[in-house]
């Protein structure tokens, strides 16, 4: 089985990078290859000019998707153990652990057994385990899954703190809002292929359109008139607002002018780039469709007219 097929992307040092993809897209495999715990059949991973197999292990900090710690050991013991594997002196490890436990509001956990902690708290401990040796690059598989909103916030702050220290962060997630909030660059993986990658701004620009969110007070007057404006299509007709897309070349303010011309009471007018969620669905969804057509054609089944 091929989990990854010619997946290629670049992560700039000192950035927060989002690795997006549906379940089974190959995110975890990709991370394992970067970490040199899986060997790829071809291709290479380089960081600052060096191949990953030549880099010291302490370059990377890893938070696997499947969390796991020695459940019968105490928090401090476990963390010191992993720090020691990376050659961190015990005194420094102890000080760092105490600092991070404090930051995560759980200073009294240091002598608790791992099995006594909730899943969310175990995850915090695991995050500390991944960063104790001060890695240059932090690779995290679904770091936010299973965390309550308070802990999500704590972890986001920790991310920003790490970035401010000059670290590079790569993480995978399904939560597009988090990506919008934190990531400067992304790669979207679909079935082992990178379908799009780059700075978030560039990815959005490359979609070739802008998004307008418009809300008016005049209920029940319909949205038909909007489709009359050249180039405008309605992507979402919600109760609270209408979302429209405009090709990059045209002026979105034409919509506002048209609304005002119709004496609409405009309560919201917002010009923006398409959301990552849209982009994700568009890339991953479109490929899904192509795949199905391809399969259908290959099997000789009658195909529907795509028009």
């Amino acid at each position, binding site marked *: 089985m091929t989990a990854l097929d010619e997946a290629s992307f670049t992560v700039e040092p000192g950035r927060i990078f989002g690795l997006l993809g549906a379940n089974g897209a190959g995110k975890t495999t990709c991370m394992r290859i970067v970490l040199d*715990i*899986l*060997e790829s059949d071809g291709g290479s991973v380089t960081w600052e000019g060096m191949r990953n197999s030549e880099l010291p292990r302490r370059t990377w900090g*890893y938070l696997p998707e499947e969390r*796991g710690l020695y459940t019968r050991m105490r928090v401090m013991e476990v963390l010191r*153990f992993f720090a020691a594997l990376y050659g961190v002196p015990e005194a420094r490890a102890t000080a760092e652990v105490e600092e991070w436990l404090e930051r995560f509001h759980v200073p009294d956990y240091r002598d608790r057994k791992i099995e006594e902690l909730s899943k969310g708290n175990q995850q915090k401990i695991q995050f500390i385990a*991944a960063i104790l040796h001060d890695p240059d690059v932090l690779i995290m598989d679904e770091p936010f899954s299973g965390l309550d909103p308070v802990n999500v916030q704590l972890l986001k702050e920790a991310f920003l703190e790490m970035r401010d220290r000059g670290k590079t962060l790569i993480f995978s997630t399904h939560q597009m809002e988090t990506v919008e909030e934190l990531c400067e660059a992304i790669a979207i993986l679909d079935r082992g292929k990178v379908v799009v990658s780059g700075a978030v701004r560039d990815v959005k620009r490359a979609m070739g359109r802008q998004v307008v969110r418009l809300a008016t007070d005049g209920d029940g007057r319909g949205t038909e008139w909007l489709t009359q404006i050249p180039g405008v299509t309605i992507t979402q007709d919600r109760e609270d607002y209408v979302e429209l897309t405009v090709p990059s070349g045209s002026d979105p303010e034409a919509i506002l002018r048209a609304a005002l011309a119709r004496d609409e009471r405009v309560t919201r007018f917002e010009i923006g780039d398409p959301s990552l969620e849209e982009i994700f669905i568009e890339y991953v969804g479109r490929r899904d469709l192509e795949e199905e057509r391809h399969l259908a054609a290959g099997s000789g089944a009658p195909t529907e007219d795509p028009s």
Partner: protein
Amino acid sequence: MRSLFPNAWVVARREYGVRVKNRTFAILTIGLMLVGLGLAFAPLLFRVLGGDEPTRIGVVLQATDPPANAISFLDQSLNGTGGTTATGGGYALETITDAASARQQVTDGTLDGALAIGRNASGELSFDYFADASSTNRSVLAIQSAVSSLVVSDRLTARGVTDLQRVFAPASFALEPLHPDQQDRSPEELVSGYLLGIVLVVVTFMAIIMYGNWVAVGVAEEKSSRVMELLITAATPRQLLFGKVLGNGAAGLTQYLSIVVAAVVGLVAQGPLSQALLNEPAGTTDFAGLTAPVLITFGVFFVTGFILYCTLYAGLGAMASRQEDVQQIVMPMTVVGMVGYFASFAAAQSPDAAWAKLLSFIPFFSPYLMPLRVVNGSVGLPELALAVALMLVFIWLAIIVAARIYAAGVLLYGQRPGFRTVLAATFGSSARAR
């Protein structure tokens, strides 16, 4: 390839800490220390329980003119010139006038035997021994030989020989044993040596099977709890594997040394104890086969055998996805261990048999058979050196093979791989041991 240390050391330290803090480990160690202590006391125990009280014999002089010194003569030839000795147990003779009452006392158990001395028609001394014993009994044989001397002495006296002391002076006799290290072994000590051999085999077997399984379960646990993914990011399979074996080996050694200390304490305490219990002078007791060569051989083979088995157990443990699968996957190793175990019981009966000698050089079996052979016979130093060298070569091979299995197995989640998958993963292109 990255160096084994210090990461193997870090892993070993964790393994050791977890292992020695384990309750089962503590209970087993204490149990085995008691066994060691008991074993050290075995010879003393044999002597205390084995009835080392003197054999009491009532002598009835029925002859009209019995030799004047009959009683003291018999006493001397039965007990030697020094009287009752520490090892002999000895014989206590008393004169009883009435034959019937002597027989009654034997029946009651207050006497062990009644010896009636008379003269037959031709003037020769005749003896009648009444006892609960067969003609091959040690005491019967001793008495028979003593009365024979008495008859000779009586005949010599009748022929006018006077310097009987010179006639019966002990002959100059020196024993030159074929195996000097085995001389002076009493039957009790031989039994104790046999028991010691069996105990060493059982200890080795238990340690290998138990720790081997612990190591395998530990590896499978790391895999199922997903600690493994963190571990292999931080350390190489070889570091992890070697650290595991080292840590568990050190725990095994700790246990072994605890047993040795218990046994040594038992041996040291034996002198004063035997003095107190048997009223014997201190320092006369033997160490019942627990000699330095035995201890060293056992120690060396215990540790190397342990490392050999544990290395392979750890490698196999990495092939399991769930802890329930571990038993099945390590079965081949367990079977090999059992073969050695049962072979050594057969070998305990005939430690010098050719097949036993051959098996004692095969690394998977020598941890059982070599100590056994050393206890029960003499094994030359070249033989031991060869067996140890073979062990070390196999350990080296086992680490290479196990590290490959480990590297291939740790990330194979989901399926329970068959033997073929194991082989393919181990020697295939996707496997590597960094």
